[in-house]
């Protein structure tokens, strides 16, 4: 079967699955609760998307298994935390402008710092283990330990409370439905990033080269492109995305703690398994599925929330092991 037939199936399953997941829980709860949960699920999904998309593209392009993504996520959260601490008066200020400004400053700080860490990681460590998945897992696992311990060294081992900028707190009352402000912001962030990534991938020459490289790394090199520079760049971009996800998640969950990366990394991996390696759209769809199902199940059957995702992952593995939107070789 050709790639396109598979993609047709993937779209079909994704649409059907998402619609089903969307509508099914409606049967078990009042409409307002449903809406609240849906928004919470979408928000969580968007944050997962940020982390998962980085993992997906890095693997798709570089064939590198990056276990350290969770640590990069945590670093992003902590850099954001420090930025807020330094500019605390802007965070607490009753000014929309200042709140958003400090938020953007934190985002930029997180992306820059973690991006640099990503570059160091790729050039010094990851580059030496191209070609061996086993050593990649081992070495990025070691890198995770080091990065998380460094968090403990610089920031201390305890959980810290993350202050939310004033404007982001609280709810909006939309047609008698209480909607958490920050969750909407997360959804907006996620969709914007998705749009930006797709724009870069589809409309710029760089993006086209990256997409070509995901399909056939060797050919892109043989056509005159410095694939190593590309790798470092994509790795840093993936790290930046993870940092953004970490910062957003810190505000979302109101706390930062050194091990926060590992929980979300597991979710991110589930997302990538469901969505398919190398596909940004797959990461988005997978992330939404994971986020929504987690929230619905958490409400209906609390102890089974994490398990529900693992079950979905197992189903996908049995039915379509390469994921919903597989790309590639």
């Amino acid at each position, binding site marked *: 079967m*050709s*790639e*396109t037939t598979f993609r047709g199936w993937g779209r079909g399953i994704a649409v059907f699955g998402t619609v089903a997941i969307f509508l099914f829980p409606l049967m078990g709860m009042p409409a307002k609760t449903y809406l609240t949960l849906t928004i919470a699920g979408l928000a969580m999904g968007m944050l997962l998307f940020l982390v998962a998309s980085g993992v997906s593209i890095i693997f798709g392009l570089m064939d590198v298994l990056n276990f350290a993504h969770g640590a990069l996520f945590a670093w992003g959260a902590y850099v954001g935390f420090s930025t807020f601490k330094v500019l605390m008066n802007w965070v607490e200020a009753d000014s929309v402008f200042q709140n958003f400004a400090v938020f953007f400053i934190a985002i930029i700080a997180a992306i820059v710092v973690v991006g640099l860490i990503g570059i160091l990681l790729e050039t010094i460590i990851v580059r030496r283990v191209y070609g061996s998945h086993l050593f990649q897992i081992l070495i990025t696992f070691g890198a995770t330990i080091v990065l998380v311990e460094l968090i403990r060294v610089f920031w201390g081992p305890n959980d810290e409370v993350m202050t939310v900028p004033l404007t982001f707190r609280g709810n909006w009352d939309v047609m008698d439905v209480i909607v958490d402000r920050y969750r909407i912001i997360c959804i907006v962030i996620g969709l914007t990033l998705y749009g930006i990534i797709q724009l870069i991938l589809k409309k710029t*020459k760089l993006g*086209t*080269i990256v*997409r*070509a490289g995901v*399909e*056939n790394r*060797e*050919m*892109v*090199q*043989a*056509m*005159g*492109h*410095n*694939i190593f520079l590309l790798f470092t760049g994509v790795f840093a971009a993936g790290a930046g995305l993870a940092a953004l996800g970490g910062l957003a998640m810190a505000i979302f969950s109101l706390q930062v703690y050194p091990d926060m990366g590992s929980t979300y990394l597991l979710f991110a991996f589930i997302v990538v398994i469901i969505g398919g390696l190398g596909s940004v759209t797959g990461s988005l769809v997978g992330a939404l599925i994971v986020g929504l199902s987690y929230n619905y199940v958490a409400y209906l059957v609390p102890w089974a929330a994490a398990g529900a995702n693992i079950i979905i992952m197992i189903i996908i593995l049995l039915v379509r092991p390469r994921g919903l939107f597989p*790309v590639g070789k």
Partner: protein
Amino acid sequence: MSEPILKVEDVHAFIGQHHILQGVTFDAKADAVTVLIGRNGAGKSTVIRTVMGLLPSSKGKIVYKGSEIHKKKPYEIARMGIGFVPEDMGIFTGLTVEENMRVAMLHDDENTAQRLERTLDMFADLRKFWKREAGNLSGGQKQMLSIARAIVNDTSLLLIDEPSKGLAPIIIESVIGVINQIKTNCVVILVEQNFHMASSVGDRFHILDDGVVIHSGLMEELVVDEDLKSHYLGISKESG
């Protein structure tokens, strides 16, 4: 007699533990189409990939236009004016024909734009399916796209690996026509198992067997040498 544009001197290469190239020496002159022929597993594709830098050579020298390239990276080698058409064509199936060409085009200047036009003149189908996803092209069209990508830059040397593989005879004829057109603009080194194609476009040949060049000469001589053909190419005296 012109200077060889490419000189391969005593090149050894390993794939894993297998010593595939065991001292390959040959050169490609600028005024002729050079064909590498030989049995399956003789190492023909490996030679091309090693020239392109996709495989490291453990010993030996490769000199292109006077510079040593055997230690360079593939993208550096490509940028020196060497085009590569791999055995599996290397088409980016998820990208459109246009995007495939854009990835190939290394510069965004007038010259490249003009070359693109001329290339599309040569391959009418590509112009027709410009916005079509490359995965939807037929086998012959994919082969044309692969060749088009390799010549859209200022290519001086074109390495083509088994272009006739998997193609219907009538398509092979059009590929032959294309190569005959191209060879006026750049030097072609062709790896081929299909003797009809090899003899239709080739001027000089080198026979590879067990990782070394065992025989070289002019194509017009090989065509009539039945013994050589049957011994090294397995072409029986009846068919040829």
